[in-house]
């Protein structure tokens, strides 16, 4: 937005003649998530000092003026990360007590994978998360592509409905879903669990896909149609491939949200369908067991992997 181009009139580039069109499509495909499209020569240009009226260098100048901001920020980051490091540290605890450090050992890592209850709960969680991820991703993609065709009021109502599950306090959604399931004559169990997970995963899928769609120039689709592709072919061969980073990132988020959910699952699970968070919660309440540390450290690892992958996907400048 702050980038000004003095040499070329941007509108001439946007709606230029047909010979530039192919190059433009290619460039749009390569555009990142910033949504700002620049003429060819300026794409790799960074704002330099000449564009600013500032006399001295950017960062030094500002940080000098807010000296305590940097210190506080580092303290906040430490506040966020020290507890996690302590969890990882305690997962290597050799003692029989979860909360008391008694020397380094990997014994609890070994025991977690042979602990029937933990393995079962992990399996349930994984199955629910995978099904919910697939369903919510498919529904989310369909929704994002179809919402464009609705009237203004219709799409506002629809997105309110889709996002409502993020706004409603989880405890309320949990008990309400349970009451609803009972009312329509179902028993809590696997199917309601999967459907409820799918519902609250959809907004997390929709967000990155919408963001990605906003960065794609719709001229690509028009070009495809002009070249004779049918509506379905355009969606399959142009829209979906261009959306892939958003879709993968949304699917990853859905997977984590489903794996993490405690409140809503808590009211929908039965003895056979205990998910991992519910099992850990009950373990912690019963009196902590060292294997909790290991499961916690592994879940932490999952969050790190998913977040890093998702960030790399969204920020990637695919050339």
């Amino acid at each position, binding site marked *: 937005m702050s980038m000004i181009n003095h040499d070329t009139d941007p509108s001439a580039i946007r709606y230029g003649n047909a010979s530039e069109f192919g190059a433009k499509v290619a460039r749009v495909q390569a555009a990142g998530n910033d949504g700002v499209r620049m003429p060819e020569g300026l794409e790799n240009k960074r704002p330099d000092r000449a564009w600013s009226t500032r006399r001295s260098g950017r960062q030094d100048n500002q940080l000098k003026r807010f000296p305590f901001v940097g210190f506080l920020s580092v303290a906040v*980051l430490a506040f966020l990360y020290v507890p996690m490091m302590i969890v990882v540290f305690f997962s290597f605890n050799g003692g029989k007590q979860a909360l008391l450090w008694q020397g380094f050992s990997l014994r609890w890592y070994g025991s977690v994978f042979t602990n029937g209850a933990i393995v079962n709960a992990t399996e349930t969680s994984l199955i629910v998360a995978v099904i919910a991820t697939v369903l919510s991703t498919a529904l989310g993609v369909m929704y994002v592509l179809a919402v464009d065709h609705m009237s203004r009021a219709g799409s506002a109502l629809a997105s309110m409905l889709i996002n409502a599950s993020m706004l409603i306090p989880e405890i*309320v959604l949990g008990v*309400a879903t349970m009451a609803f399931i009972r009312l329509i004559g179902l028993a809590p169990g696997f199917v309601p669990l999967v459907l409820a997970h799918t519902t609250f995963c959809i907004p997390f899928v929709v967000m990155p896909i919408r963001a990605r769609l906003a960065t794609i120039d719709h001229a690509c689709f028009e070009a495809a149609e002009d070249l004779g592709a049918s509506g*379905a072919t355009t969606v399959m061969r142009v829209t979906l491939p261009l959306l892939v980073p958003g879709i993968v990132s949304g699917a990853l988020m859905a997977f984590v949200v489903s794996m993490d959910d405690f*409140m809503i699952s*808590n009211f929908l699970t039965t003895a056979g369908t205990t998910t991992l968070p519910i099992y850990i919660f009950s373990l912690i309440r019963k009196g902590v067991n060292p294997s909790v540390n290991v499961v916690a450290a592994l879940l*932490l690892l999952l969050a790190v992997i998913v977040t890093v992958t998702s960030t790399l996907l969204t920020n990637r400048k695919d050339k």
Partner: protein
Amino acid sequence: MSGATPNSKTATTQPAGEHDKRDEHGERPAWTRWFASAHPVKPGMLNRLWSVPSILIGLLFTLGPIGVIVAFSFMSRPDMGGGVVFRFSTDAYEKLLFRHDYFGNRSFDARYLAVFGTSLWQALLTTAICVALAFPIALWMSMKSAKVQQILVLLVTIPFWTNLIVRTYAWMLILNENGPVNWLLRLLGMGSQQLLYTSFASVIGLIYTFLPFAILPMYSALSGFDFRLVEAAYDLGAHKPTVMRRVILRAAMPGVMSGIALCFIPAFGSYVQPVLLGGGRVLMVGNLIASQFAEARNWPFGAALSTVILAVTLLGALAASIMGGMASRKAGA
């Protein structure tokens, strides 16, 4: 996913472009216009029928349950066990404020109001501290180079995606009597303190959980901020507090508003932190609701409590979005 159906559906509207007008003249039967809309599907997009599954599942598993819980709050409880009897009654709401003794006399009862008070206090304290901690780091992040900003956003997002139980459990490890904090206190000769299972622990857990919720919107409000404005303000003779208040804070305000909403709403209905970190000492509305649907089994009362916090939440969200809108108009965004 998209096999034969999109073909047939889009084919009816697809000869788009030149043929748009035919639709508007109403040559087609009314029902096709409703389903396939007056304006053609844009190339590369789908017909709105494709959104039906998402909307349906939203209706079934979001709006449906909320409707049911509000309806349940106006019904009576059965003589024994859980569930409801379909007979209109406002007993559940009366129970929030009044108590009946054996003789049927009604007297004011502040027990449940106290629970709401605890929730409100814990949520407000959490929100205030989160916003106060989030502002400097959001400002700091937004002043870094693009590459560093990406890494910092990643660092703030990782805790956000970490399992809630794990994040809460981390504080059990830290605050318990043999934990690092007490170890340090003993080393300093202050003796070990009861830190876990206090309302202090519960607030710490809530702050830890919701801090990223405050940082991210504030950062996104500030990340597009043109810091040359700060420079300009200084050049025009403004002092540091004035610049902070009238330039930076004003730009950050929409983010502050959504940060407040994103912290307060889930904190008010929290369940896990008060149970694990507050032990039996902190009773919040979330815990009260859960117990009404489990042990005590007074579903209408639980439903009434849910309805009340739902109303509080929606009002809070509405206020935040109105104030956020005002703030962003002021910020000139």
